[in-house]
């Protein structure tokens, strides 16, 4: 029987060293809500597990003087929910992260794990894409920054290089009149996996959209940044024509598959439906953020 080694370093340097040294047999353990399930099902048999929760930076949640946030990649959904200001500044990102699994899972699951798992249906990812979040990774050659949308490369795959560990997310300062929202379609009311997920981040001035980003999940091999949808919204007052154009852009961006969770036709339609609904919520929140 193969042996499993468990390491729980206290510093990132140690963690990167151990992770890089162990090569492809190693896996990072944050909340473990994907990793342990994959191990139990027999899908994955790692030789080394590097638990990064003992590294303070990995779970820290900090708001800078400019109002921007730095969120440790292993910070749990519940820690974010309980943070005094995060949910007020990034309600869409928070609601997306809080949709990962059940209440119990929320005590462990993290946005970093959700992103590194590489699933196109990960709930936090479209919201983080819409937010314009940047991730910091550290590897044997030091630190570098990547846009969230550039992290997933294919189902289950990311652009992280061997030995690299995702450290934190940086969310930009919030302008007045901006907010975000995330909606997903699931057949049930909870405990389910997104058939389509849409994150929308808007800035409005005098009722006119001055900035917009749209993230779209579960409709392609990776989560998408839908720039055509954002362009359709920018400059509009979110009138029917603009929303229709943005919804059409989301549907057009879809490259879904027919599978047990939904058909191509269904996912394509729902991407547009959710864009309209999510944009409406984001706009309403933005109007209150003076």
């Amino acid at each position, binding site marked *: 029987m193969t042996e499993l080694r468990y390491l729980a370093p206290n510093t990132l340097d140690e963690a990167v060293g151990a992770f890089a040294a162990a090569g492809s047999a190693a896996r990072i353990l944050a909340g473990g809500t994907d990793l342990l399930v994959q191990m139990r099902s027999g899908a994955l048999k790692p030789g080394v597990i590097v638990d990064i929760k003992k590294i303070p930076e990995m779970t820290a949640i900090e708001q800078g003087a400019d109002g921007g946030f730095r969120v440790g990649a292993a910070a749990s959904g519940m820690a974010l929910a309980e943070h005094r200001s995060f949910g007020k500044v990034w309600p869409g990102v928070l609601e997306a992260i809080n949709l990962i699994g059940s209440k119990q899972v929320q005590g462990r699951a993290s946005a970093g794990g959700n992103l590194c798992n590489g699933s196109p249906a990960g709930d936090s990812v479209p919201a983080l894409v819409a937010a314009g979040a940047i991730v910091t990774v550290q590897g044997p050659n030091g630190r570098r920054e990547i846009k969230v949308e550039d992290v997933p490369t294919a189902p289950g795959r990311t652009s992280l290089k061997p030995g690299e560990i995702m450290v934190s997310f940086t969310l930009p300062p919030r302008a007045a009149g901006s907010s975000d929202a995330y909606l997903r379609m699931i057949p049930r009311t909870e405990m389910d996996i997104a058939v389509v997920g849409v994150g929308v981040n808007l800035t409005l001035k005098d009722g006119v959209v001055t900035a917009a980003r749209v993230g779209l999940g579960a409709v392609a091999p990776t989560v998408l940044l839908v720039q055509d949808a954002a362009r359709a919204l920018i400059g509009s007052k979110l009138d029917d024509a603009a929303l229709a154009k943005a919804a059409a852009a989301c549907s057009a961006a879809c490259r879904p598959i027919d599978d*047990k969770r939904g058909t191509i036709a269904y996912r394509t339609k729902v991407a547009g439906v959710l864009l309209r609904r999510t944009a409406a919520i984001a706009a309403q929140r933005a109007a209150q953020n003076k």
Partner: protein
Amino acid sequence: MNVVTNNKWIGQRTIRPDGVDKVTGRAAFAADTNMPGMIWGKVLRSPHPHARIKSIDTSKAEKLPGVKAVVTARDIVDFPIDKSVMLGIQDMRWMCRNVMAREKALFPGHPVAAVAATSEAIAAAACELIDVQYEVLPFVIEIDDAIKPDAPILHEFNKYDGKPSNIAGKLEVKKGDVAEGFKQAEVVIERTFTTRPVHQGYIEPHACLVSVAADGKTTIWSSSQGQFMVRAMTAYLTGLPQSDIRAIPAEIGGGFGGKTIVYLEPLATILSRKSGRPVKMVMTREEVMRATGPTSGSKCTVKIGARKDGTIVAAQGTFYLQAGALPGSPIRGAVGCSFSPYDIPHVLSVGFDVMSNRSKVAAYRAPGAPIGAFAVECVLDELAEALKMDPLDLRLKNAAKQGTKAAHGPVFPRIGYIETVEAAKNSDHYKTPLGKVSGKLRGRGVASGFWFNAGGESSAQVNITEDGNVVVTTGHPDIGGSRAAIANICAELLGIDYRRVSVLIGDTATIGFSNLTGGSRVLFASAIVVTQSTEKIITTLRERAAKIWEIDPEAVKWENGAAHPASPNAGEFPPLTLADLAAKAPAMGGPIGAGVQLNTEGAEGGFGTHVCDVEVDVDLGIVRVTRYTAVQDVGRAIHPSYVEGQIQGGVAQGIGWALNEEYIYNKQGKVDNPGFLDYRMPVCSDLPMLDCIMVEVPNPKHPQGVKGVGEVPLVPVMAAIANAVYDALGKRFYALPMSPPKVVERLEAPTQQAAE
């Protein structure tokens, strides 16, 4: 018969005896028992839906360090095809081939071999070392494909119309002459419906621990709906005499019919016998979903004719049900129950048992009845619409009542079907307008349902403890509150506090034969034997008091937990309580106890009528049930909370079946959603409060008026929801589940005539 009338405990919501253990985690389920020296069993399963097994080489697995025993079909007792051996509704010819593939592997997940080793990991690794040579054969999953003339045939020996066929059987019930009946009809509706296979979805996977001693004496700890079924099936399949097997029922984490057959126990018994070690086996969820019985997928055609005044004159149903890889789909339930709520002069109901390359079905809550009722009750809804009648009025007009002869044979005694329809009609729910909500469409639907219920063998032993309390032992695993209800009944009869009565489920060595928990039979049957045992004890107590008082036993009455002189003429004596008489027992003839064993009769069918409101998000195709009222004739609610629990549980399962649950097969014939993520049962937040209205029309043939209540509540649900969805959308769904992609597809489809 001694009808209880004082009702101190019967009808009370007493604290359930299994509650504390279940809430605190102390309850011992099947996987909770361990033994010193125990080893682990694992099953090697067929990857193919259909393949001839050419050879099995286990030599490499046997050489792996830690492996203690290997089992293949050679170790299981063979029941040759030409001779049927029945155990209840199961035929051992099929059971022996289901627990271990014999000539052929018949579905992906079909056991081919089993290994016991010192760890689960070693057992799993050993399974991978077993070399099975398969000749892969063409397979068939769906009913339409399985009954085509050129379909791949699962069993060449099975003939229908003289030719090899996948149709394993046909069942027909008939009343009057339907051809004549339809001539009298002024409105006729005929529709075809399909439903997908759905799983019972019990939380606890199948598990067992088996220890075979050197002398062959065997102890089985397992979770099942019948320890005597476990004993008998294991005896048949291993060749052990039943007297050498002691089957101990674990607390059960859900069954719903799915635990009325065995999968692991015979394998673990043989592995234990070969290895000399206790063997534990626990299925994974994936194994449960791939290899244990869901219920049938179906294709049903129902035709109903009525006069313009709403009188139904003829009804015809044809029900094709998937059996899975071996014969035995629940066509009896579909054929027999579907038209039973109605008094129809001409009925023809025919069922076909269709085999295909998926796991063998097991019973699921009113097996077959919900499938048939879905078709019948949806057609009735269309008929009511065509006749411009309220759908409940149509049902009232044609309702079965005392004296109605059901197509499947019986003439109903006093039944409560009409009362359920009237209660539904008078309910706050039915009287409250639907109202409107922005962005969504609302609708309301109704449906009725029937289940046979059952009696059968039951044993009880009631003993008075030395300190004057009571221990009742029965032989049916408690999956629906039988212990709580029996405590109420026994306390009522003895006139003592229910907390002084402990009710236990005995194992096969400590209580007499009791048929399995199924058919909504348990409280009906065990209440009879417990009542008779308790009455014997009361007779003994009166005799003892009479002896002490030196009066005639007839002059002693039992009241409020004590013996009293029946009248002043009998003399004046202070009462003798149960505790007094227990204390005096050694000197007065010895221990006090009584047991009764019976094949109980007089179970009467149960009826229910449901009202359902839905709200449909038309852009996303999501149907949500927003209000639900289930009315049921429950005979007598001995423990109302448990009766409501049964009703709510049945409705919850029906909502899942209607809206999202289905087995999805990939192109290779394998189940593509073998887990609770993609096999979508409802979660709590999917359901509104499920309101229950209990109508009590006591069963005249039962001492407490009990009727089975566990299965009826699933029967009407899918039709009630489908009818509500039609009311919301103006489009009828003839196929389940009504999942979001299917609802959107239907809404976007060009308007067309629905199913012919």
